[in-house]
């Protein structure tokens, strides 16, 4: 029996769904990736549900367990900072009186704090860090390195981040022959824990009903082209199944690197 129309409209369902998968791959001994997914929703008075989410993917580099530590540390510190400065104040806020810090500044500080600590504790290591903060109907991205954030809906998959790699840069310049790119692919010109200071790319986007966020490291986007990712996601019953299927596809393609992927969807198309 269908609900009466007015009842349907008033029903406050929480449409957010999240999936995560991480795998060391077929070649590497260790998984140097770190990932984190956290989400909750608050429903108050007559307001529509207000979802909050924090999603992070970090891909560490550097020998002797250092890469692994760098990604884990960066993930923890950056996420901890955002929790402390954005999510906690939101939960403890009283009335409409607002002294809220601009989100880009909080995200920049979160990345800087992680950078300082990684640079000092693990001087020979570095890590990528791609972090998505969902607040209500908007998503905020902070990004360093060559992990990626995508925004997808149906057959469309739009990349929200730019790779900070030499290969990407040379390609932008339109100067590099494809065979030369391979040796440059993995050289980053910006990585957390490396260099004197860090300036993450920060971006804001509105999130529409039916759109999903996909965060992944190069272990996924390297071997699996965007169109294939889209097809796999569209065929999956849930975001979690989509993540599993994406990892399986990357392994099939060789699995030379660690593979990590997070999908956070605002509504998921029902699979027939």
């Amino acid at each position, binding site marked *: 029996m269908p609900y009466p129309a007015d009842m349907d409209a008033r029903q406050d369902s929480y449409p957010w769904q999240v999936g995560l998968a991480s795998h060391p791959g077929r070649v590497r001994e260790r998984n*140097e990736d770190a990932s984190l997914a956290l989400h909750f929703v608050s429903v108050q008075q007559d307001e529509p549900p207000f979802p909050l989410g924090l999603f992070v993917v970090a891909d560490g580099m550097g*020998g002797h367990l250092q890469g692994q530590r760098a990604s884990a540390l960066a993930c923890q510190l950056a996420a901890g900072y955002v929790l402390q400065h954005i999510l906690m104040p939101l939960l403890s806020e009283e009335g*409409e009186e607002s002294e809220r810090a601009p989100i880009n500044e909080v995200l920049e*500080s979160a990345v*800087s704090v992680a950078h300082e600590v990684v640079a*000092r504790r693990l001087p020979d290591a570095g890590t990528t860090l791609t972090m998505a903060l969902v607040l209500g109907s908007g998503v905020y991205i902070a990004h360093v390195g060559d992990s990626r954030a995508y925004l997808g809906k149906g057959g469309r998959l739009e990349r929200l981040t730019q790779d900070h790699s030499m290969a990407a840069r*040379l390609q932008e310049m339109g*100067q590099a022959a494809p065979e030369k790119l391979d040796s440059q692919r993995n050289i980053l010109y910006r990585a957390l824990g490396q260099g004197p200071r860090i300036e993450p790319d920060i971006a804001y986007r*509105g999130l529409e009903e039916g759109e999903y966020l996909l965060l992944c490291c190069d272990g996924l986007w390297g071997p699996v082209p965007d169109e294939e990712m889209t097809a796999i996601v569209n065929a999956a019953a849930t975001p979690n199944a989509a993540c599993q299927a994406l990892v399986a596809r990357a392994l099939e393609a060789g699995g030379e690197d660690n593979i990590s992927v997070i999908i956070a969807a605002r509504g998921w198309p029902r699979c027939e």
Partner: protein
Amino acid sequence: MSNLDTRRITTEERPAALQPEGTLPSNTVLQERYQVLNVHGVGGMGAVYRARDLRFSGVNKIVAVKEMNNSTPDPRLRRISIQNFEREANILASMSHPAIPKIFDYFSEGQRSYLILEFIEGKTLEDMLEEERRPFDTEQIVDWGIQICDVLAYLHSNEPPVIFRDVKPGNLMLRYDGRIMVIDFGIAKVFEHGQRGTMIGTEGYSPPEQYRGVAEPRGDIYALAATMHHLLTNRDPRLEPPFTFHERPIRLFNPAVPEVLDTILSKALSYDVQERYASAPDFAVALSNALPRGRRGVTRPGTAAFAPPQDVAPVWKFRCEDEVRSSPRVADGVLYVGSYDNNLYALNAEDGSFVWKFPTEGGVVSTPCVHQDTVLVGSEDTKLYAISRRLGDQMWSFATGERIRSSPQVEYGHCFCGSDDGRLYALNALSGRMVWTFESGGPIRSTPLVSGDMIFLGSDDGYIYAVDMGTGALKWKQNTHRRVTSSPTLGEDLLFVGSADGHLYALNPGSGWPVWRFRTRGYVFSSPAVADGTVYVGSADGHLYAVEASSGRQRWKYDTGAPVTSSPSLSHDIVYIGSNDGSIHAVEMKNGQRAWSYTTQGPVPSSPFFFEGTVYVGSTDHYVYALPG
């Protein structure tokens, strides 16, 4: 905020002892000859110490001891670092140039190797950049550039040529006598972790071909030019994508740099090796011609002293009895504008001929709003007027408690307008009857923005407010601590508004949460305008800014030379803005270059209005101008 937190963590985590981990303690004696005095610096491969050469017992001969710790467990990496260290020793041993440190000795002890070098009293340019935090003086940089060219020419003239490969501020030292020394011939800053997967490379100053393993003299020229670019702009290339110097024209950050020097450095920074200067001496010659003898900045005859020639001629101009601070609006071929002479004028937009004027009892700075058959405007006589467009007579008026500087907006048959009495009024647009009011803590001069069921506005109490359109109930507010006279604009899912705290804010329209804020160096009374992912706004610091909407990063800024309180108006490729320098500036949207400007006889706080190919604007010289867009 980030500085504070950074500092806190540093003190917490760094051990109290001043001795960096793994370095030699003071008074250690190496080879029974070099007594370590203190750590001078710590690099990637080991420390540099200040030491005393005991062989010269009669004098206090100070040397630099450069250490390389080769304890890395990776045999391949260890071999590479030892090779590099030996190469550095050999290169230095064969060099003789006053700007290259002398080498005295080379030896290994245990797992460490050492170079004994001339100790140079001075500061690296990197340290100086840290201290100064602003662009260096042009003449100074050109002088240093020429000095470094001389060393590079010497290195490149060796057989085979020595390529320095690592020119950067951290490897250049200014001695106390003013001479530049080139230090650290270690190179080998290639991070090779010997495994597949992601690696880290150096960035910033290196030429593109070096990433393909090509080292040649013109690469050093690129790196030197990159270093000079950093010193002249104070923009660290390590924080920017590689090879993007051309996207940061020097004169944008340091207008004191002559154009000719900008051109010379651009050539030296060419992506293509063939397009750079052929040799270090060629580069030096170009640099020495960059600054004219005596003082720089040649005054061309005939540019100053007299009234500058105008770039454009007005289509028409119309003289009011007093200043025109209000911004014009055009509808159906008629232009409406207020003046400090108390009148609202209706003029023929095509030729500027007079149609009618409506007298109020106070100055009209409010921007008129056209709604069907009426035009609405506020006056400093405290009243909001609805005037018949055809005849210029009053339909209704509504008195508020104070002067009106806010501009009315009409949506859904209702008129919304702020007043200096601190209230936002919602009136029936046909009758002028009040529907509700919303009270803020200070004068409302900002123009309300109506979107969906929300109204956004600023108040001089420092808050940005969102109010329910139907009831006037508060939805959210955000404090900026300074007056918000600027009017909000929506675009790209964000709400943009300026504050007297110097920032342009981007807020989430639903929650009021600031997404980012962009800092200028003056009040932002100007109201932002948005197009194609870019926000444009003026600041009392004299600039018109173009800021990326999604990130809050500056795209470009344009210097008008005087405070800007006018708000930008956009055509498809030009931004128009008034300035207190007396001009209306037309600026290219894509790059912030001046398209033209038109000078009036007084400051221009009025906001231009671009409509069907023409720019309409008022000036404090009492005129309303129509300029060809």
